[in-house]
């Protein structure tokens, strides 16, 4: 049995797509209203696509595909047109997107070190609280390292989450260097035989090279203790993020020599996080978890089909 089964994550929140209309519904309505594929139809489709943050090029590809399919295959009635378009959407957005399959944690490594990175305000600390809670629930011991020594009260915030999750935390002192906190945390986890280590880092804009250097250093010092650590580096991306999300993922990945996944947060709002499709497409970087609220159990496994459906809900 995989760890994830035991983790007890819920599937993408049912409530998310209850009353709203998804892309297939919208396309269906569009077809019923217009009946033919004309410029106006394509403009409306384009608006639906662009508004989801999947990016202008992805939208363009999709629209070109639909245009050429219609020219080649023709269609008899609205039903057929609907099927044809749904087909193309699935092809471009769901099926061709790699690495979206759910992922299992290898738990043969102990401690299993997870490093969390991202720009300011995306929800790193909150996500760590939720992750820790789920590991704890699955019977795994967790040690959190508070390596955000920059933001005021970041350590207090993380400590509150650690308490909520019922896991231990290694605190930074005021003067401490983030890398030394990470080192102490991993060191302590080795000594105690802890299953999982989660390292929080300060939010930083990816174009600030000195801050990216600091991140590299955190990774480097952990490797002094465990050469293959961190076993996972998750970048946290806020669902409201636009096209800049790709730069974020690229820069963090460049600095750290690769990432292993995305945690997409704040999906409970009106933003749908379409940028992760583009990131996945260009970097083959899978979304692993989604954050859907402020409660400790509001972290769920990513699931591509329902994600894409939810992406275009109105």
């Amino acid at each position, binding site marked *: 049995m995989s760890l994830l089964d035991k983790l007890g994550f819920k599937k993408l929140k049912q409530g998310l797509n209850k009353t709203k209309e998804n892309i297939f519904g919208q396309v269906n309505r569009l077809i019923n209203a217009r009946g033919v594929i004309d410029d106006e139809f394509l403009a409306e489709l384009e*608006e639906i696509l662009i508004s989801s*943050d999947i990016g202008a090029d992805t939208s363009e590809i999709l629209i070109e595909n639909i245009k050429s399919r219609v020219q080649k295959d023709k269609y008899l009635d609205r039903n057929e047109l609907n099927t044809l378009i749904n087909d193309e959407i699935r092809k471009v957005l769901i099926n061709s997107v790699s690495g979206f399959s759910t992922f299992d944690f290898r738990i043969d490594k102990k401690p299993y070190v997870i490093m969390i990175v991202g720009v300011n*305000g995306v929800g790193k600390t909150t996500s760590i609280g939720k992750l820790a809670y789920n590991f704890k629930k699955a019977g795994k011991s967790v040690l959190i390292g508070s390596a955000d020594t920059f933001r005021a009260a970041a350590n207090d*915030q993380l400590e509150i989450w650690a308490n909520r999750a019922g896991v231990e935390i290694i605190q930074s002192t005021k003067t401490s260097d983030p890398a030394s906190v990470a080192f102490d945390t991993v060191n302590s986890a080795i000594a105690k035989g802890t299953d999982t280590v989660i390292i929080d880092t300060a939010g930083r804009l990816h174009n600030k090279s000195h801050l990216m250097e600091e991140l590299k250093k955190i990774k480097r010092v952990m490797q002094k203790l465990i050469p293959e650590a961190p076993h996972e580096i998750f970048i946290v991306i806020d669902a409201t993020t636009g096209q*800049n*999300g790709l730069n974020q993922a690229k820069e963090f990945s460049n600095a750290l020599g690769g990432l292993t996944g995305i945690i997409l947060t704040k999906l409970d709002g009106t933003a749908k996080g379409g940028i992760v499709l583009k990131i996945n497409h260009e970097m083959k970087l899978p979304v692993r978890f989604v954050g859907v609220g402020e409660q400790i159990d509001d972290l769920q496994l990513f699931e591509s089909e329902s994600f894409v459906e939810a992406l275009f809900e109105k």
Partner: protein
Amino acid sequence: MLEDLTGKLETVLKKIRGQGKITENNIDESLREIRRVLFDADVNYKVVSKFISDVKERSLGQNVLNSITPGQLIVKIINDELIKLMGSEKSEIKFSDRIPSVIMLVGLQGSGKTTFSAKLAKYLKSKGKNPLLAACDIYRPAAIEQLKILGKQISIPVYANEKEKNALKISEEAVQFAKQNARDTLIIDTAGRLAIDEEMMNEVSALKKALKPEEILFVVDSMTGQDAVNTAQAFHDRLDFDGIVLTKLDGDTRGGAALSIKAVVNVPIKFSGIGEKLDAIEQFHPDRMASRILGMGDIVSFVEKAQSEFDLSQSSKLEEKLRRNKFDYNDFLSYLNQIKKMGSLSGLISMIPGAGKILKNQEIDDKVLVKIESVIQSMTKKERENPHIINGMRRRRIADGSGNTIQHVNRVIKQFEDMQKMIRQFSRDQGRGLMKKMKIPAGMMKDFKI
């Protein structure tokens, strides 16, 4: 800021410029590309559509086809429309005679409200106000603690009541506290909330009703995508906010959300957050931003910044030295300090016209200055005053002393010598303008990419 957008528009515009005359065909083609650029910059779909059709209408209406310099005309039209989109002038915070005047900050989670409230407090204090911060985010763990720490850093009092679980009560207590302690401005930091969270939106509406703030500022992350307009609209429907604050603009986002929000809710963007430090706040200048987007640079901001930060007595001393051709490492050091006072190098460079394009993928590292400083500081007094005595052995010692490689020391020395040469040139040319002397020698950035 917005450099990518600038770069892309420049490419598109070059196409138009390169062609002798504008036909309806190549307008269409160019506009299609501009449209795409704007989508890539996260400008809202509807806003882009309107923008493009406005530009097209104006272009064709003005008989561009026969224009002698069609490129310039198009640039002007796009510039005008962009300014129109972003609002044509900067606007200030509203205050009243009431004590305290209340400023309330609202927005989504993680947009940067708490940090910005501290920046705003510091900014207003520097303008002669006597602000009080109120910690009304009772939900996010340690949010109150965060504001208290920030308040301490800027020596501005923070009203907090950890026992109270009602934001409205805390804010009312803060008003009383402000009255009793002669604080004329109250800045309310509220919890981040989703626009669709009815309960939370009711809470903030109640705050507005009770406090009647002179100013409600909607704080938004400049990296926000297409959803920016929905959120802004929803907050605006409930709160009728007075201004927008654009945070994290020191990143590499193209910041199209700024245009979108402004266009949709028609409320001015008043401030931008441009760094991690608590003085990294700037008044927003829509007109300058439009020029920037079009690659004309933000030279006005640059000069203003230079004037406010550059120490005139220091620079006249420097000028004197330059004239007498006596420029040593001590002068170099004080020159570096002058530059440092002006803020981050990358921030400065981005204001220079054209620099955005040239340096597009070239990163300006602010640590460069620190590295140079460390080298100079490891020189003896004698060496600093007599640069020519620094031989190989001395270089070795300086390298060891400053923790740098000898190559790095050599680069700094080379840089210094280049600068001396440049100065000699200056004295010959009688180029005495302040701006000219501040010019960062070409190659410094390149040489010191460490």
